[in-house]
């Protein structure tokens, strides 16, 4: 049912970088993952910041308003976001070379 991919430049949340603000465009997850996302307010239009990756590189921590949540990269693949520029309170540089390796 993923018709009409939005026109703006969208990337997957799993490919997002730390310290950048994003706006959610689309949630394509199914079943319980989808429900959890909607319940937590991860819906189109919402703004989020990627805070960090877990020490081993997988789950991701994001911030929506004053609320912190985590999700696995494979789950973040179901969320399309668009970049909104750097987040003023964070330092994207510091995290740039974060650990992406396999473990």
């Amino acid at each position, binding site marked *: *049912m993923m*018709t*009409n991919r*939005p026109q703006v430049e969208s990337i997957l949340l799993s490919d997002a970088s730390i310290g950048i603000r994003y706006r959610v465009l*689309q*949630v394509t997850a199914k*079943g*319980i*993952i*989808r*429900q*959890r*996302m*909607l*319940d*937590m*307010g*991860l*819906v*189109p*239009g*919402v703004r989020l*910041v990627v*805070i*960090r*990756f*877990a*020490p*081993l*590189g*997988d*789950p991701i*921590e994001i*911030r*929506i*308003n*004053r*609320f*912190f*949540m*985590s*999700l*696995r990269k494979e*789950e973040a693949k179901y969320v399309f976001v668009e970049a909104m520029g750097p*987040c*003023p*309170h*964070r330092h994207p540089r510091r995290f740039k070379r*974060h*650990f992406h390796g396999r*473990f």
Partner: protein
Amino acid sequence: MADSKTIFVALAGNPNSGKTSIFNCMAGANQKVGNFSGVTVEKVEGTLKHKGYTIRLVDLPGTYSLSPYSPEEKVARDFILFQKPDMVINIVDATNLERNLVLTTQLMDLEVELLVVMNMIDEVEKQKTHIDFEQFERLFGAHVIPVSAVTKFGIPDLLDHIVDIKSGKIETKKYKHHYTEKTENYILQLINIIKQRDSWKGVPTRWMAIKLIEQDPDVLAMIQSSPCREAVNEVLNSVSEDILKFDQMETDVYLAEERVAFIHGALKETVRNAEEEAETFTEKIDNILLHRFFGMPIFLLIMYGIFQLTFQLGEYPMQWINSLFQLLTQFLDGIIPASIAKSILLDGIIAGVGGVLIFLPNILILFLCLSLLEATGYMARVAFVIDKLMHRIGLHGKSFIPMITGFGCTVPALMAVRTLRNRGDRITTMMVVPFFSCGAKLPVYTLIISAFFMPAAAGNVLFGIYLFGIVIALISAKLIKSTAFKGESEPFVMELPPYRKPSALIMLKQTWMRAMMYIKKAGTIILLASVILWFAVSFPKNPEIHNKYETLRLQKGANIVQLDHHEKAEQLPYSVAGRIGIFLEPISRPLGFDWRLNIALINGLAAKEIVVSSMGTIFAVGNDEGNINSLAESLRNDPLYSKAVGLSFMVFVLLYIPCIASVAVFSRESNSIKWALFFVVYSLTVAWIFSFLVYQTASLFGL
């Protein structure tokens, strides 16, 4: 039930909203823990009196929504729909309204008497956030009561409100949450169709209509058997088409977005926040605790700390309990004349009670630690840090704690599994926990190693055994998860709650209640099993042997203690346990075990601690602790035994049923006799197969 002086109240709210704390403020000590019928979801009930009314509180499980995807959410929703509480108190974390209010809007859809409690108001004040409660009440149509479970601010006000609503002194407006005009139109159409057909057991039709638009499987199922099915489906098709065409979304996303947008708008009108995006206190702590280099070492250190605390610190009270029971036994031994009843009491019942209580220190300490992790907020981080590895075997990061706890004792480890939300994860984790070699198995390994191996090799053999257990556990987890619970993976979409100062009182209370639950349920079974086992080992006796030893004992200068040992050993093959041991020889032969080792293993069912001492009895060296060397000696010199037998025996001890207590707890925690039986069969099968392989291979190499 529905008498006018009793108020039936359900507490609903997100996890970490402070539900437990508020429940405790309200109900105090008057609470009772149980399960919601048919599911292993904890149900806490309490009662209190206020202004002549009796308030009956039921704490619903903490949930983010009322969707039917997890047992907790289903329980909460069915409870509100079908038990029809007089009112629902929705506890929200006022420092995080944006997310907490999603559940509130869903409760509004249910058209219940709703009372919104804004908890953590102390933190709100500290953050210099301003909330306009009056405007909030106007928008949500529910009374809002600011409360702090920590300072107790607002609790009396909350109780007054509950009574006032019941007595009709104040009226809740029961606002409906209004969706966009388009959505409302469809909702109306659906209501008109379904309300003609059925009373739907009192389930509000507006809620049903909303859920139908969201394609909720449960409500769709309700409709499927009704004649209005066609008409409903027709409307649903046009909603989906409409929303997909104009908004490029599926209907459930659309409604979720509407809710979030409503909340966002409402909060703009009511809340003035300090800086929105500044790094929070929690974030700063996490910069260290979840640091990309130090996060892992810190995590391991914390896990190590808990482990040491539980099993090292727990060692002392365990010894006290042990000594206490020894003293009791000695004392009773002195005053009761010899008889079968005495033997049952001392060796059966008292030993059994001791066997139950001996786990208590471990359980108490471990659960206190777990409560601490949970209440501070670090528990979610544990899962966050280790999830990548756990996910490899199909499990969730939260399975990690029960697993490592298994190295200490299987019983508390199985009980720790209740922190997992997904049933598949729970059962899978419980199935593999016993393969993490528990502390009680160590003396067995030590004995066997000292009997058959060079001291230099001891460390390696021991390490190999532990490692082998872990490997079997991981493979089993993967296997069970990808067959029995295929595709049932628990998502990691979850909150990382803010760090908070925990309340010692609540932690102690929770720990105590869990410990009591263990004693009540597991205790009776362990006790029963110990008595049965005692009978099996002691009876029947062979009178000829008995007479022979009676004569020997009467001789001058007879060593009574030694004669007792020898009699016990000689009587063993005639006892039920001995006969079973002999009977089992055909299937234990391929593993290298004769009937004597079989008896030791049967004894090990009561507890692994007993294996070594029962071998002391079997090999007639007595079962005191000083006799390990002579026991090792007898094993080494026995022509039937060899290195291969030793290896095979250790593998079997590692893998077979840890103890009856663990089976009892397994059955309790899984709420399924079937799975408990499978657990028994599985561990026995795995143990047999690997012991067989080890013995046969080792024999080939002439060990």
